[in-house]
């Protein structure tokens, strides 16, 4: 049995590219949150922007959020992975450039071309607009997604190259020699294991996504090249679900890297940890069918497999990470600051957010719950209180002036406002789902409006908190690129 001891890792500042990613992420995230508020205000009947603008904003909010959390997650992953492998800065920046080009195309498609078919661009909707948007607008939207995808393929190819060069193969990057053989304690660190998993699943997901996007582009201009709508939906959800799942696996690297620096306890790449990541590498590619359970035309076995794997995949990494974090923190004398608070609460958000999906993944529940606000309740909890909290924790970590720096009461208040606001906001989604409020409706019945209004108040609270987080990060950008000890050592270890 291998023994694990903590090896101190120096705190390195962020490269300019990582900071560029984070600044873009912060600005776009804030903008997308404002878009989210606009939608809830419309449903609350506080405003009347109309159906066209509601669906245009919904399309931008969905596509923008998926893209921007992926960009933020990539920044976290790249920052820590480069401590172990030799990554290309040029490719990293090329991904950002391609991302921004794609964003401009999507913005033009929606704002100028009136495209509003949702970020899921489900076939045949983009090509059958009934005159509401042009073929060119739909092509611009899908072309933008394609360009963003090409950037991420390049990034993952570079990560694969670097991991293979350093460790000798992606199998070794996942720690297979230690998982299936003798655990000599030399398994790759958690950052490398997580990055390997993300690279494998995203490469597969992106190639499938690119294939359906190209086919739909062909179909837009030559409709006689028909596409099976069920196949198109399956491919879109495979790509979309893998991609959005991967963002939390990128961001969780912040937890693996930063919490041990606070407690000086190692995050072990032991057999259980390696097994959970290998299992999820496979299972994450088979859980998307919980979005297809209402499509009775799919083969029954396919839906049952989706149901079972959806149940199974909820747990391995989540339990290993949640339990691991508690073991690292338990009786460590950890000093809680904004970074450690956000990282720790992110695991709570991840765990709580996964549960509604687990419930929705049950076929009989799915029939009545899937097209309700229950599902946005799930992914907003999982992403906002889970993934986005990890990114904000990372931002606080980079900008911390010194290891003994105290948080201002405004930051602490913002933290609690963020937690309470997110819980209130997501609970209003979940409760609306429970009373069968459909999702993606611009107009709500009077009986549903009180919950929408409650959600709007909570979003304002979240926005106020996020403004503090972002302002603090931007005001401390000067610290973020320097190399110095940031983590406050646990009380039992601190010398001062």
């Amino acid at each position, binding site marked *: 049995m291998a023994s694990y001891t903590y090896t101190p890792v120096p705190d390195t500042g962020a490269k300019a590219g990582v900071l560029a990613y984070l600044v873009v992420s912060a600005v776009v995230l804030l903008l997308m949150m404002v878009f989210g508020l606009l939608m809830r205000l419309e449903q609350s009947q506080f405003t009347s922007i109309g159906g066209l603008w509601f669906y245009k904003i919904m399309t931008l909010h969905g596509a923008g959020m998926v893209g921007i959390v992926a960009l933020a997650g990539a920044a976290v992953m790249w920052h820590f992975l480069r401590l172990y492998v*030799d990554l*290309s800065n040029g*490719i990293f920046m090329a991904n950002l450039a391609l991302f921004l080009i794609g964003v401009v195309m999507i913005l033009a498609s929606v704002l100028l071309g009136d495209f509003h078919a949702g970020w899921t661009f489900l076939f045949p909707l983009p090509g059958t607009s009934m005159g509401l948007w042009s073929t060119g607008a739909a092509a611009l939207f899908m072309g933008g997604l394609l360009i963003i995808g090409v950037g991420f*393929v*390049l990034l993952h*190819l*570079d990560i*694969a*190259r670097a991991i*293979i*060069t350093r*460790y*000798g*193969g*992606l*199998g*070794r990057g996942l720690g297979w020699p230690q998982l299936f053989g003798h655990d000599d304690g030399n398994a790759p660190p958690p950052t490398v294991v997580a990055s390997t998993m993300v690279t*494998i699943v995203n*490469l*597969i997901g992106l*190639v499938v996504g*690119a*294939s359906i996007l*190209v*086919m739909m582009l*062909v179909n837009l201009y030559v409709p*006689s*090249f*028909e*596409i099976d709508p069920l196949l198109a939906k399956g491919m879109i959800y495979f790509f979309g679900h893998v991609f959005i799942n991967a963002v939390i696996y990128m961001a969780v690297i912040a937890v693996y890297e930063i919490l041990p620096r606070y407690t000086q306890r190692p995050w072990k790449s032991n057999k259980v940890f390696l097994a959970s990541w290998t299992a999820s590498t496979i299972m994450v590619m088979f859980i998307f069918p919980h979005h297809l359970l209402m499509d009775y035309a799919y083969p029954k076995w396919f839906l049952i497999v989706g149901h079972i794997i959806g149940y199974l995949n909820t747990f391995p990494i989540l339990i290993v990470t949640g339990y691991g974090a508690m073991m690292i923190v338990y009786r460590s004398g950890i000093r809680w600051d904004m970074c450690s608070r956000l990282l720790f609460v992110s695991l709570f958000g991840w765990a709580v957010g996964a549960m509604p999906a687990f419930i929705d993944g049950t076929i009989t529940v799915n029939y009545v719950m899937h097209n309700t606000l229950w599902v946005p309740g799930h992914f907003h909890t999982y992403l906002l209180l889970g993934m986005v909290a990890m990114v904000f924790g990372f931002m606080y970590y980079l900008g911390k002036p010194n290891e003994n720096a105290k948080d201002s009461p405004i930051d602490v208040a913002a933290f609690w406002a963020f937690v309470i606001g997110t819980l209130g906001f997501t609970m209003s989604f979940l409760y609306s789902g429970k009373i069968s409020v459909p999702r993606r409706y611009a107009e709500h019945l009077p009986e549903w409006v009180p919950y929408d209004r409650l959600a709007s108040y909570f979003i304002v609270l979240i926005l106020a908190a996020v403004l503090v987080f972002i302002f603090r990060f931007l005001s401390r950008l000067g610290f973020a690129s320097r190399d110095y000890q940031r983590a406050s050592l646990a009380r039992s270890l601190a010398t001062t």
Partner: protein
Amino acid sequence: MSSPTLPRDVKYGIGLGILYLLLGTPMARDWLEATMSRHMLVQMPLLVILGIIGCRLLPVRWQNDVLARVGGSVPCVMVALFASSYWMLPRALDAALTEPLAEVGKFLSLPLLVGFPLVLAWRRLTLIGRGFVWTNFISMLAVLGWLYIVAPVRVCNSYLVNDQEHAGWYMVIGSILLFVWWLATLFIGSGVGPNKPGGNGSGTTLA
């Protein structure tokens, strides 16, 4: 007195030449071009493979000289990309069957403009370059196959609709198998190429 023996590479070269000529015989052409699947997925890849083997039989010094003269690995990849894309067009297949000049063009361009430049470029490409070539080729093959399956019309005058559909399915299946194989090579760490662009890595691995 022992009889003089030819170097091994020269023997292989002669064998390769014979194989090339055999592919060009009316009997082989008739059989391989009788169906779209054999034409696109057997004859054409064989011509590319002949170009690949032919290039690898040349001394490494010659390969490096040619690569330097043509401007490096990127132009080679671009030439291979455009030449192979042309031969994916249904119209090109028809032309090869009906116009002798186009048939000669196919027999010359696939080995010389696809196989040959790919080998020249390969040893200088990092995993990013090799990955780009593979993911591009695999997704093109999959999408083309899909288009052949769902095409509402006969895309080649020389082949029947069901032949076209069979070829489409073979392409889709082939692209999936190729993708799985390529990912598997990453798991065992082969085919990574040189660490830096332009470095002289191994040209012997396909992935």
